[in-house]
């Protein structure tokens, strides 16, 4: 009897935990399938009485109730996040490789100093960053935002790259160097191909960081044609009347790539996201 109770208790916790984790996201999804008339109906309906994909269509074509050029936001986010992913994976590969393979004085200090830079990007450096970006002409520029996001992604990305290259056996590289290959050649021809999985997760991590970054984009992108998706989404929720079916479908579309990546590449993803936290 006690055993049955124990098993029952265990699965009760499973269900509660599952609901706590999943229900909030599901609830927004549920709302995103409703027509406006049904959104504020009490008691709320699960599933919607007349489910529709119209809200998604409206977001993708930019015809939401609270007008916003969603396709433009979408394009901008793709551009900025792609710049960030490409730049970060290249620069972090170089840095991570050097820090894991090449003997140089101050290597450890450098490694920790880079990690320290991970902590500061946030509202407390917003004003000086704005000041700098204006001075160097990268204010209100998609490329500028991409470079800034790259800088924010680099500390963790460098550590990830460091861990990636350190875990590759160096015998192959040493053999090639004995035969006269240069360090550069060894890096490009041997280390990069062997580290490609790690480098892919760096690109992924950088893409996501940029894709979701909010406060710097908010301050650095004053013009609507340059705004990114998070800004569009937030402008929705700051209005007095919130069209939750639109906000819902935009939020779901916005998070869809991330949830898909999570399901498809869980292990890589977890490793990437928790990098720098503890283990390289």
């Amino acid at each position, binding site marked *: 009897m006690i055993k049955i109770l124990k098993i029952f208790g265990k699965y009760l916790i499973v269900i509660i935990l599952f609901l706590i984790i999943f229900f909030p996201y599901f609830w927004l999804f549920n709302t995103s399938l409703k027509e406006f008339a049904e959104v504020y109906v009490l*008691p709320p309906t699960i599933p919607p009485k007349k489910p529709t994909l119209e809200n998604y269509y409206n977001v993708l074509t930019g015809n939401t109730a609270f007008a916003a050029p969603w396709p433009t936001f979408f394009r901008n986010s793709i551009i900025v996040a792609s710049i960030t992913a490409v730049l970060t994976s290249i620069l972090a590969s170089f840095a991570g490789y050097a820090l894991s393979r090449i003997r140089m004085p101050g290597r450890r200090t450098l490694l920790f100093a880079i990690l320290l*830079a991970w902590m500061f990007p946030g*509202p*407390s450096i917003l004003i000086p960053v704005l000041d700098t970006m204006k001075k160097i002409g990268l204010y209100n520029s998609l490329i500028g935002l991409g470079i800034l996001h790259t800088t924010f992604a*680099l500390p963790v990305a460098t550590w990830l790259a460091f861990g990636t290259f350190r875990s590759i056996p160096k015998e192959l590289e040493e053999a090639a160097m004995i035969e006269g290959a240069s360090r550069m050649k060894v890096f490009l021809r041997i280390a990069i191909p062997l580290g490609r999985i790690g480098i892919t997760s760096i690109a992924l991590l950088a893409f996501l960081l940029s894709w979701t970054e909010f406060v710097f984009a908010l301050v650095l992108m004053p013009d609507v044609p340059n705004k990114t998706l998070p800004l569009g989404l937030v402008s929705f929720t700051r209005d007095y009347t919130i069209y939750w079916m639109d906000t819902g479908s935009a939020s779901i579309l916005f998070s869809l790539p991330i949830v898909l990546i999570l399901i498809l590449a*869980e292990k890589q993803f977890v490793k990437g996201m928790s990098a720098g*936290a503890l283990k390289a």
Partner: protein
Amino acid sequence: MSSREGALGYAFVSPTVFLIVALILYSILRGIQLSFYDIHLLRGGEDIFVGFQNYIRMANDPVLPNVILNTFIWIAFGVSLTVLLGLATALFLDLKFRARTFLRVVILIPWVLPDVDVGAIWKWLLDTQVGILNQFLITIGIIKNPIEWLSSPDLALFSVTGVMIWRLFPFIGLLTLAAMQTIPTELYEAANVDGASRYGKFRHITLPHLAFTLILGSLILTIWFMNNFAIIWITTGGGPGHATDTLATYIYKVAFQFLRMSDAATISVVTFSIIGIFSLVYLFVLRKYWAGEI
């Protein structure tokens, strides 16, 4: 040979270091400098040196003490509960049951969702009139009148802290679970032979092994709470009044809504100084944790 190698190494690292120095380190130094000036960032024109005037004004800011108290509550409650819930989740996920693998993936959802999504989700869920949480609590008879989760000055700060905990406890859960799996099983077997209780094993084997992970996790969480802007911004906008303003949202408001750029720069200096202290502690613990491994 080896000095040429070293030079190449520095060359490989230099673009990364350059960006970090130019945009992060320089921003910190420039931020300190700006706090001594009357800044004309929004208007154009010259900045004027004003000495400690900004700091004197900051000391007399009637809202700031409240904002600092909010930040303290947000971090103290947020971090401790996130760690406790994360630890409990890890202990639970370590048990054997069906759907365990499934749950370990699903649990990542709050953590991987963008901040702006998390904010939107909970703003909708916690809405006083039409939010599903109030509807649910009324239906099952726990409450009679809807609770003002996000609009009551007494409750709002705890509600947004709850949202942040929801977002981050899976992270600590998985971090802790990973650390638990590196504990040698022999230790538990030996304890079983000695007839140790379940609590005894947790207290004397599991917890000491998790200490570093939990300490590092708490430090990272502290910094994440400190830097988080989007979740508070979307759910409450720092309101009602200043009830949920933390240093992060207050800096933004002072700079871009009240247009007191110099005051915001000064509060920024205080903020990143606190972040700096926690970061250095973090690095100190991390170096110990690795003790020569790198």
